[in-house]
């Protein structure tokens, strides 16, 4: 636990937001999901590395599996919802389990740093069954109407070599 805490109601509302967001993706309601993100969103899944603990080298420009903004997420959503995309039609069956939700206040009123974990179980085509697990750090912004917008998301998957058959999945 951090020292700073938020009201129980805020924690509850954030959790409901994350659950709902996961369900929209599981139900292939991509437009509804896109409506939950902020115009200035930065959506990232950095590559992981298997390095010695002593290693300090950083890359000024680094690589991400995802590094998207509002517009590029729109392109992804357009593609995911269209019939006929080879890797998404027939569509996979997915279930996202969201857990370990922690909410921290930030210096900006109405903005919260949110830690959570997500496990995606995906079954695709005839019999392909696979799991991807990740930790997430989000920035959620109150929309002034009891809800939130997703303004930043960092997804840290446990996989170094991506073993999932494709990353056609928003997390």
């Amino acid at each position, binding site marked *: 636990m951090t020292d700073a805490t938020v009201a129980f109601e805020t924690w509850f509302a954030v959790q409901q937001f994350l659950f709902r967001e996961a369900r929209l993706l599981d139900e292939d309601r991509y437009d509804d999901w896109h409506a939950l993100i902020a115009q200035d969103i930065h959506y990232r899944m950095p590559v992981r590395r298997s390095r010695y603990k002593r290693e300090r080298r950083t890359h000024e420009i680094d690589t991400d599996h995802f590094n998207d903004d509002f517009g590029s997420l729109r*392109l992804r959503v357009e593609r995911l919802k269209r019939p006929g995309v080879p890797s998404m039609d027939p569509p996979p069956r997915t279930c996202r389990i969201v857990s370990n939700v922690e909410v921290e206040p930030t210096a900006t009123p109405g903005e919260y740093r949110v830690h959570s974990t997500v496990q995606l179980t995906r079954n695709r085509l005839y019999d392909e069954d696979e799991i991807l697990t990740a930790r997430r750090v989000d920035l959620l912004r109150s929309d002034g109407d009891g809800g939130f917008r997703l303004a930043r998301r960092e997804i840290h998957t446990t996989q170094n070599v991506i073993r999932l058959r494709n990353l056609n999945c928003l997390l």
Partner: protein
Amino acid sequence: MDKLEDLVRADEGLVRREIFADPALYRQELERIFDRSWLFLAHDTQLPNVGDFLTTFMGEDPVLVIRQTDGSIAAFLNVCAHRGTVLCLAEEGNARHFTCTYHGWTFGADGQLVDVPREADAYYGELDKASWGLKAIRVESYKGLYFGNFDPAAPSLADFLGDFAWYLDAVFDPQPGGVEFLGGTMRMTLRCNWKIAAENIISDTYHVLAAHGLSVQICSAGRDMQIGVEEGNDLGQTLSATINGHGWNANLDGQGQYAIFYDPEPWLKFANASRPRYIEHLGEPRAWFVGSSIDGGLFPTFMFVPGFTFRIIHPKGPDECELWMWTVVEKNLPDELKREMVRFNARMLGTSGMFETDDCNNMENMSKALRGVANRKFDSHYAMGLGHERYDDPRFPGRVDQRISDNCFRGFYLRWQEFMGASSWSQIPLAPRRVTGDGALMQEARHD
């Protein structure tokens, strides 16, 4: 198993599907292709400082690549000389020496065995350390790209590339300054034979229409720019070229690479401003490859789609391989465009790519369909453009055809057959050369 001459009939454009599935053939590939081809290890810019190292594979053998104190690049089998466990467990870093986690033998960055626990008493000071260093691998470079070869009898990297370097220059040396590899490595497992992943880039422009048509439509946002798959593009406007099994498929409009970029404008501006230097450096018509849509690669596993992906394919058994992908840009590209290229590569032909994921689906389904036995007995069709290739084009070296052609597939699989059938390098032919020292072409066509 069928005979090698039945498995690949390049002159008919036929390849038996058995070669994508058979474990015995896979084992033979490791011995006859991966144990004696020049395989990509690293680019100069991935190891900027003395002691920088990365670990990779040549075939399925683990390899350690290290920047030496004299600035050169050395490569070793990443295996402790003592008992053969993997020596360096990290994928990258900086180190002066490497200590085995099993018995503690320690090797310098130059591969020499420098320290052995209990050397004086348990070994009675009798261990000949000089002969128990790491197994060194032959390393040669082309334009900042380092390649390794396990076979001392292999020809030089320059001979292995042959006239294909004339094309490669347009990607790796378009103007003074060259290119750099940016950031880290995207890695993913593919459940398909390595050749399926290789042929997709080394020759297959044709698939873009069907496999990526929807994504092209979504990403081009109504812009009317050619991406390389349009009808009516004859040789000269477009091109496929194969030399020594390597493949090059390209347009010559100097701009098609950017057609489906998020915002093509700054890229076109950079390319247009650089064009005089491209022309001065590469000459006509070569300079017009830069900025054009290109897909190609080196036999067997180093592939590129400039602007989208650079990658190596590591074989992992007859029906699995691994893709390691990098972003490569011209060094003098503005920083903001470098950052945009990294983002864009991930989004298009990266692990989460709107194009890549459809490729993976198609490629994995090819291997999936080979679990049985009936399908393995049939031939796949690689006969598009068969009989329409030429060797004597005044502008382009190698065997060439228009871009939408199975020309480079046939070159790749003929090369596969040549390697698989040869017991030593002396039996593997090298294509005759037409390119002269200054990049000009000798008019006389020379081919066997």
